[in-house]
């Protein structure tokens, strides 16, 4: 949460001669982050980020209190202006004829830690004075009239929300404020005219008939709020359990300043100065008369627990030892009560520091006020862990990316969440995907099970790129019953290059990992094949058509988990050959739809002296194969090769209904 604090307003609470820029610098180093300073009207306004645990700093007074302690550390004269706002100083009504009776207040379930109120009569409906209007504008609040703005003003100054009821409306509706939990179906309308239906369990105020007359700590309701004819005010403060406020505020999405403060647990002791300050302003600006006694039920005052901390703990965290007297001094400046027993401190935080509960919290207070910037900076001299995770190989992933990028491929990062259409473009049905319960946009709803549809989309998006090849290394998410999805890392590749060129790139990539060969197993009636290294399936390959243009794309999916165990970091060295190999070409006419992969395989397996077989050229049905013969012991003569050649021709002609071109 951020709060805006005009400098002049701050200086009413903080005595210092320091310039705003210096206040910004010092406070940010040891306390809340003063993110910016705006020039607004004739004043500078600080924009300060307050962390959720420090609701005590969400006010002008709160910031002044923090700043006073911090600035002193920098040897800058700074002091929190003392303040005395006590309920005993509110005068009791003297004229009994002008006394107005307080409503009956019921809190059977003890839902409020503290309740305070007072009745003010004869409210003069005056315009908000310029000084107040200016400050409200500087902190970006709307300006209404004094009777309404006073409540916002004191909340900002002191940090506790306060509400002004139309006293006569409350009395007309039964003169009773019953603090209770709403039932399911109860209805209320907020002061801005929005209607809501309760889910049950919200803390509300009801009249004797069970009508909701306020949504406390969040927003007033229209039936009891100040309106144009309001003459008398019931000024009211309550403290409801933070989780109850949060529940109602989140349930109905009513996120007012009051709600955001109250759900974080405001110090109930703040109720008194806030009420007193508001009464003073109503007297000053609206000429009100005090018409009742001050009601104050603080029967549930919380006591904060004492934290016991060993001084050694401070050294454990900071790596240096700080004098006991300095530690005690810092804590006392922060208004903690400290009892030192040898090397142990018993620290009782002030009522507004509910965030201090464990020794580490006390360490933080000492460290930040001492100044993090005053601590040395060193690398740890401790042991280096050697236990590496299994199943991951980040080096191989990097190598893959580098190789593909070097061979002309573009690496893509696409979203893990996909649209319904992209989910359907995978090999899985839509209902076989995990779906987000609260997706933000329609194009990101399902957790993808394949990278390929996303990559195809990337090709479609870049029609200006000819022969674009894209790849991505990312997880896909396969649902499992009662378990987290199976997250499987895939290498997805989609290219507009020819199938042979794309496969060639894959081949070269695998060679990078010393995997010298792979094959594709494809059923003749299918347009999809399995990629095998030996007997291990590492992925799939298929052809898709680019929407619109009809251009073909080669798609490859490699499952990294299957590939990783096959990867080698170095080759198995073989002594250089002492004999020469002989290469020759054979050309066969093959029937249509003959798979070439198996042909190559067949030739290779004919004899141990056939070292390598490659497809050199294809012209219509004619396929030219290059065959390399080699024997590690002797140079092969034509006489030795001749029978092999004959066997190749015979086998291929027979197994594949092929015909040799030319003669042997």
């Amino acid at each position, binding site marked *: 949460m951020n709060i805006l604090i005009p400098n002049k307003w701050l200086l009413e609470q903080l005595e210092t001669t320091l310039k705003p820029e210096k206040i910004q610098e010092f406070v940010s180093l040891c306390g809340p982050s003063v993110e910016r300073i705006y020039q607004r009207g004739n004043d500078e306004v600080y924009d300060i980020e307050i962390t959720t645990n420090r609701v005590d700093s969400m006010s002008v007074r709160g910031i002044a209190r923090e700043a006073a302690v911090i600035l002193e550390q920098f040897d800058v004269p700074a002091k929190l202006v003392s303040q005395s706002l006590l309920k005993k100083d509110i005068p009791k009504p003297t004229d009994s004829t002008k006394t107005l009776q307080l409503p009956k207040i019921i809190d059977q379930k003890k839902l409020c830690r503290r309740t305070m109120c007072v009745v003010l009569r004869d409210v003069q409906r005056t315009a908000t004075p310029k000084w107040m209007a200016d400050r409200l504008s500087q902190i970006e609040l709307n300006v209404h009239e004094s009777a309404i703005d006073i409540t916002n003003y004191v909340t900002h100054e002191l940090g506790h929300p306060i509400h002004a009821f139309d006293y006569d409306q409350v009395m007309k509706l039964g003169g009773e404020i019953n603090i209770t939990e709403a039932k399911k179906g109860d209805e209320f309308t907020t002061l801005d005219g929005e209607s809501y239906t309760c889910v049950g369990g919200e803390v509300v105020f009801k009249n004797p008939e069970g009508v909701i007359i306020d949504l406390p700590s969040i927003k007033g309701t229209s039936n009891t709020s100040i309106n144009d004819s309001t003459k008398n005010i019931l000024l009211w403060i309550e403290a409801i359990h933070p989780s109850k406020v949060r529940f109602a505020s989140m349930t109905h999405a009513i996120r007012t300043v009051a709600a955001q403060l109250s*759900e974080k647990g405001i110090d109930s002791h703040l109720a008194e100065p806030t009420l007193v300050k508001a009464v003073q302003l109503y007297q000053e600006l609206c000429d009100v008369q005090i018409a009742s006694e001050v009601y104050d039920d603080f029967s549930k005052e919380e006591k904060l627990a004492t934290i016991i901390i060993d001084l050694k703990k401070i050294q454990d*965290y900071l790596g240096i030892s700080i004098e006991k007297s300095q530690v005690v001094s810092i804590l006392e400046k922060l208004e903690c009560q400290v009892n030192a027993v040898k090397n142990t401190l018993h620290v009782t935080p002030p009522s507004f520091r509910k965030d201090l509960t464990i020794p580490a919290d006390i360490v933080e207070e000492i460290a930040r006020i001492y100044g993090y910037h005053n601590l040395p900076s060193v*690398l740890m001299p401790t042991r280096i862990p050697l236990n590496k995770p299994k199943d991951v190989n980040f080096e191989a992933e990097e190598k893959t990316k580098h190789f593909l990028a070097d061979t002309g491929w573009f690496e*893509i*990062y696409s*979203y893990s*969440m996909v649209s319904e259409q992209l989910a359907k473009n995978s090999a899985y049905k839509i209902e076989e995907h*995990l779906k987000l*319960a609260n997706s933000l946009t329609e194009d990101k709803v399902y957790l993808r099970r394949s990278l390929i549809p996303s990559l195809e989309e990337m090709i479609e998006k870049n029609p200006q790129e000819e022969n674009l090849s894209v790849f991505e290394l990312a997880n896909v998410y396969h649902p499992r019953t009662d378990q987290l999805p199976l997250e499987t890392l895939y290498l997805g590749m989609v290219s507009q290059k020819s199938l042979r060129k794309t496969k060639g790139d894959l081949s070269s990539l695998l060679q990078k990992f010393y995997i010298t060969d792979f094959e594709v197993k494809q059923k003749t009636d299918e347009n999809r094949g399995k990629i095998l290294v030996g007997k291990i399936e590492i992925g799939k390959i298929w052809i898709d058509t680019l929407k619109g243009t009809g251009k073909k794309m080669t798609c490859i999916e490699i499952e990294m988990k299957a590939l990783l165990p096959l990867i080698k970091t170095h080759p198995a060295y073989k002594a250089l050959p002492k004999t020469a190999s002989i290469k020759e070409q054979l050309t066969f006419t093959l029937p249509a739809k003959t798979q070439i992969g198996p042909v190559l395989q067949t030739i290779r397996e004919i004899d141990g002296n056939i070292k390598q077989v490659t497809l050199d050229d294809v012209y219509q049905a004619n396929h030219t194969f290059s065959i390399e013969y080699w024997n590690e012991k002797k140079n092969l003569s034509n006489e030795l090769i001749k029978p092999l050649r004959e066997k190749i021709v015979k086998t291929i002609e027979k197994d594949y209904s092929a015909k040799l071109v030319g003669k042997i």
Partner: protein
Amino acid sequence: MSDNSINNLKQAITKLRTQFDNEDLDLDAKKTAYLGKKGSFNELSKEIKNVSNENKREAGKLLNELKQYLQKNLVDNSQQKTEWTDLTLPGIKQKKGHIHPISQAIEEISDIFQKIGFTRVRYPEVDWDFYAFEALNMPSDHPARDEWETFFVKTPQNKKMGKMVLTPHTSNGQVREMERLKSKPPIRMINVARCYRRQQDVTHTQMFHQFEGLVVDKGITIQHLKGTLDYFAEKFYGPGTKSRIRPFHFQFTEPSFEVDFSCHICKGTGLITDEHGDKNKCSFCKSGWHEVGGAGMVHPNVLKAGGIDPQEYTGFAFGWGVERTYTLKEGLNIDDIRYFYSGESRFLKQF
């Protein structure tokens, strides 16, 4: 060569060439052996008479090629002059691909931390509420959770682990790493992963990347966190870059910090001297510093959730966005981070 097939001639030519290539004689002797009157070439040429008439033409061509090959390779290179070449001709470029900038950043970041003993790990991107929040000292409905605009998966809740979420930060790796190491420090982990939040504008995407460091051992102090951050700043942004920590609040660290790096453009001064010697406000940073992310000393409850005794061990953690960290580099002022995930080739080509 009684067979008329030209193939036999081809075989013989291949064989002769292989033999020639492997022959280890001095130049003159080799010349005589191959191109001499009774040399191998002349011997082989006689075989043309055995080739059928229809193939004679091709045979002649093959023999001619062989002769040229032999001649070319029997020239004394020491006296050979290279013909004139226009060296100003433009080069022909290989088609170049591109590694995505996020990968480049992740690689650089991981390398920096691995050099000081960090182990890179990977944990689920879809995880249980337990690891993403509960074990990090954030019970359900804690207001601190509001800051993580979390995506939930539509699936039944697990009794023990809670809801299934898309990880809104990499901190789910903290307790998982403690579990992997069976609660036995030392821990020096760097976890880089995809993260997800319900947000979308020029500075936020529904998916982004974070990296998370976690160090746990005996005697780990705030000084070591500062040392690690300074080391990273210096390596990643260049010599002279400093880090600073300021108070902040996270539920899973105590104390918690916000981490800033000094601006490498104005050297942390917030001022730039122009060509006239005038000092102007640095437009790249906020008064000399860049806010990059969060850090802190691991909260005792988080150590406990990972089975580690907070009386015996302390630790620190830090985590921030890869995109943000990377785009703070000089010259990488990318105004709309959605480009990272757009697949826009004009964007990717620049990296």
